[in-house]
């Protein structure tokens, strides 16, 4: 059940250019959270809306969150110091399905945050995609204690294999039998991964991101089209079965 928490900030540091890692002391929230869920962070009274951010770790009673500086809200958040308290609403959304057998996590950019939480809780390998070496190296460090194998691509070839995560995926899938793929990142990336998963007959769960106001399923800001009609990313998601959200018959990205 979602609740409001006043959590103490343990650290709030820049781990790559414009990417921050926020660690909060929040034992109760950590206890009730599932991998794939998110929180609504209250920046200050100056802002009309909260900011939805994925839960990246719940280990040791601490909740870890990663965010990229994109606007005034995240800029304000980045200035908060350890020792300050932050009001967060959570845990929200459905979370990934429980899984006993080994899975493959495929993430692009900030999409790796909810996958890190999955890595903590499930047996998994991870395929990390990023634009530059700066964007992938800290993720590699974060995932290392929780996964068996790490595969990396960078768009510019500045680290590991040059290309997109999807380019490396067939090779990764042929080397091991995974029970499912969990993916989060740009929609175009998730779409490609879901298509390949379907060809291989692998279950695939995708994590969606959409602008939202309430995070509780009331405002309908985050509606998306699915095979079962419009669904709310905040409440019915953010995790969806790839088959429900992507139409493979059509190449139209609007579908």
């Amino acid at each position, binding site marked *: 059940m979602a609740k409001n928490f006043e959590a103490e900030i343990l650290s709030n540091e820049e781990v790559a250019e414009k990417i921050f890692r926020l660690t909060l002391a929040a034992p109760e929230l950590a206890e009730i959270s599932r991998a794939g869920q998110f929180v609504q962070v*209250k920046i200050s009274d100056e802002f*009309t*809306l909260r900011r939805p951010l994925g839960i990246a770790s719940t280990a040791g009673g601490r909740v870890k969150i990663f965010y990229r500086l994109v606007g005034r809200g995240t800029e304000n958040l980045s200035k908060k110091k350890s020792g300050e308290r932050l009001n967060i609403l959570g845990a929200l959304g459905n979370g990934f399905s429980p899984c006993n057998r080994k899975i493959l996590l495929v993430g692009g950019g900030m999409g790796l945050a909810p996958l890190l939480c999955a890595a903590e809780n499930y047996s998994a390998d991870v395929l990390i995609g990023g634009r530059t070496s700066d964007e992938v190296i800290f993720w590699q460090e974060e995932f290392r204690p929780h996964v068996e194998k790490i595969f990396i691509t960078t768009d510019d070839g500045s680290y590991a294999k040059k290309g997109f995560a999807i380019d490396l995926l067939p090779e990764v899938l042929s080397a091991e039998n995974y029970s499912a793929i969990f993916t989060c990142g740009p929609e175009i990336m998730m779409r490609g991964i879901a298509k390949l998963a379907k060809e291989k007959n692998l279950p695939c769960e995708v994590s969606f991101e959409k*602008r939202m106001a*309430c995070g*509780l399923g*009331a*405002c*309908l800001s985050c509606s998306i089209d699915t095979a079962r009609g419009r669904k709310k990313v905040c409440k019915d998601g953010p995790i969806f079965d790839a088959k429900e959200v992507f139409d493979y018959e059509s190449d139209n990205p609007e579908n």
Partner: protein
Amino acid sequence: MADFSFKSLTCAENILQTEICGIKLPTPIFAASGTFGFGEEFENFVDLKRLGGVMVKCITPKPRKGNDGVRITETPSGMLNCIGLENPGIEKFLTEILPRIKNKMNIIVNVSGSSVEDYGELAKLLDVDGVAAIELNISCPNVKDGGIIFGTDERQAAAVTSAAKKSTRKPVIVKLSPNVTDITKIARACEAAGADCLSLINTLMGMEINIHTWRPTLGNITGGLSGGAIKPVALRMVWQTANAVKIPIIGMGGIRSASDAAEFFLAGASAVAVGTANFAEPSITMKIADDLEIYLQNCGLKNIRELVGKIKI
């Protein structure tokens, strides 16, 4: 001693208790349509029975998918939305949703149609157990085929009001648009057509442009502005309208605190509704009720009704 504390307890409980259109309200604080779902989404955060009522998400004759693309954006002290009346339609509301929520709170059903007849039909279908009142949405700025075309024309507003009034025994509240030159003209037209109550204001039409892509931020190009930014406009319109009509007013627009609410009562509102503030703080209505109670006590008043329209000019 026991007697004394019982007395003070009932006194404290009664201070916010009031009535509007014959509906008993534990507090004069409503949740505004479109910001509170069907109420149940907020059950963990709010004692729904302590609200005056919930204006549930706007219902239309047929299900609507709402608008495509980006639906919200934050603006200085507010936000723009263009949800576009996404809702399951009246049939599903009556058969699936209403039975589930009807004993949980006072339910005001917000409705929108694309013709005068639609409003009559919706009002008729909602003349059922579990519905406390009907709120006619003639002010949604985000759909082409409904709402606002009726809210910006006196004759249309009157026609819609009268169609609804003829079709139902439920109190009819008309929700007014601020996107007009003189809101009191529309207000008087609705009153003359039989409206039991007016609620105001709906959102102000606005827009935002992304200077990197040169495209509008919102999928619908324009959207409705809400939140703290619109409070002075809403308050002015409530005050003007209160001077123009005799029927009660539910004031809304940017209310975030008990002091904001108190301003609306002073301007002439008999009750208030909280909208956008529910997004940032889902339990805000309860805090507003608590703080309003203290404010009234500090003013030496015994009931919220004593504050209504008491602005000193």
